[in-house]
């Protein structure tokens, strides 16, 4: 591992024990795997590159990434926004595809209320041809995306700690900072929009618009593992 790579990873793994990192590098245990013992006594092994997530309350980093229209977009470029519905998504993932219409609907409902959808694709197009910039443009135009769909080639997904696509981070602007208010799924039924009972993201944004604390702040869902770009 080169020094630059190590530095980047250390930055990403803000909350991760450097001692553990050192020990693992020294022993070479499991190659790219770390090992922890959870509260329940279960041993958990995971990829070295898997990073800790932001948690609700953290300040989310802004970014400047290439959009499907060729421009660069950042959170700061949305002057009037009260917050954001940041979605890590992709072209290739069936779960992402299943949510495309619902993402357009979310943007339709909430962009005008100050919470636009911002989609980021963190996947390596070398691994998934469907996720090239060209194919992102194509998909966006075919499916009528109304929101920015950005190439995350800066490791923003790793900084946020995205674990899968699709995964949402709802952010709220508070004194110039973008604070994480919700992390998780869009709703409770990926495969059938008509059978949804709990609209997690809508509920979270509705709470924020009403100046209330978000009731459900974290949810989990099955999704596609992200194949990170090798150049970050």
């Amino acid at each position, binding site marked *: 591992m080169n020094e630059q790579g190590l530095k980047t990873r250390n930055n990403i793994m803000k909350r991760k024990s450097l001692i553990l990192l050192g020990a693992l590098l020294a022993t070479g245990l499991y190659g790219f795997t770390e090992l922890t013992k*959870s509260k329940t006594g279960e041993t*958990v*092994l*995971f990829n070295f590159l898997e990073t800790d997530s932001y948690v609700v309350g953290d300040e989310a980093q802004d970014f400047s990434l290439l959009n499907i229209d060729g421009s660069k977009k950042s959170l700061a470029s949305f002057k009037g926004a009260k917050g954001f519905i940041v979605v890590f998504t992709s072209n290739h993932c069936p779960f992402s595809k299943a949510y495309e219409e619902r993402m357009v609907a979310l943007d339709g409902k909430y962009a005008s209320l100050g919470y636009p959808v911002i989609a980021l694709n963190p996947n390596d197009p070398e691994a998934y041809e469907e996720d090239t910039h060209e194919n992102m443009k194509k998909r966006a135009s075919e499916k009528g995306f109304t929101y920015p769909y950005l190439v995350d080639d800066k490791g923003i997904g790793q900084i946020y700690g995205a674990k899968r696509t699709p995964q949402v981070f709802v952010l709220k602007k508070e004194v110039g900072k973008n604070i994480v208010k919700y992390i998780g799924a869009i709703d*409770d039924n*990926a495969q*059938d929009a008509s059978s949804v009972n709990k609209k997690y993201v809508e509920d979270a944004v509705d709470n924020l618009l009403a100046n209330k604390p978000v009731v459900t702040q974290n*949810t*989990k869902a099955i*999704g596609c593992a992200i194949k990170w770009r090798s150049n970050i």
Partner: protein
Amino acid sequence: MFIELSGSLARAQDVKVIKFNDLKAIIDSKEAGLKIINFWATWCKPCLVELPFFETISEKYRQKGVAVYLVSMDFVSEIERVRAFVKKRELKSGVFLLNEPDYDKWINKVSESWSGSIPATLMIKAGERKFFKKGFDLPELEKEVKLFE
């Protein structure tokens, strides 16, 4: 060759659609041997890479009481696609499709450390649990199996 082919055909698996309670029964069952529960899907590239390794382990360690369960996360509407895949790959491990779309309800019950991304694998033997939020190559998978012996 002929015998082997007919043998595998004879053992061709159906894909059982299960609910979380069924999965929980597998997780909690009191067999003495190692249970390996792999979460995969036909659309998950890294999952498909490691599927043959689970098959190899299943074949090689079945006599030693190791049971492999391949639990598909494909949508239940895609069941025929999963069945066709299982047939084409001639999978011999038990294949299940977990039809439990409210993921947030049960993911923590498999492992609190799991975000829901796949591939993921749970190994259980006599109350000892190991959860892997990662893909395997064959030597690594076999090493983990042997650690349970």
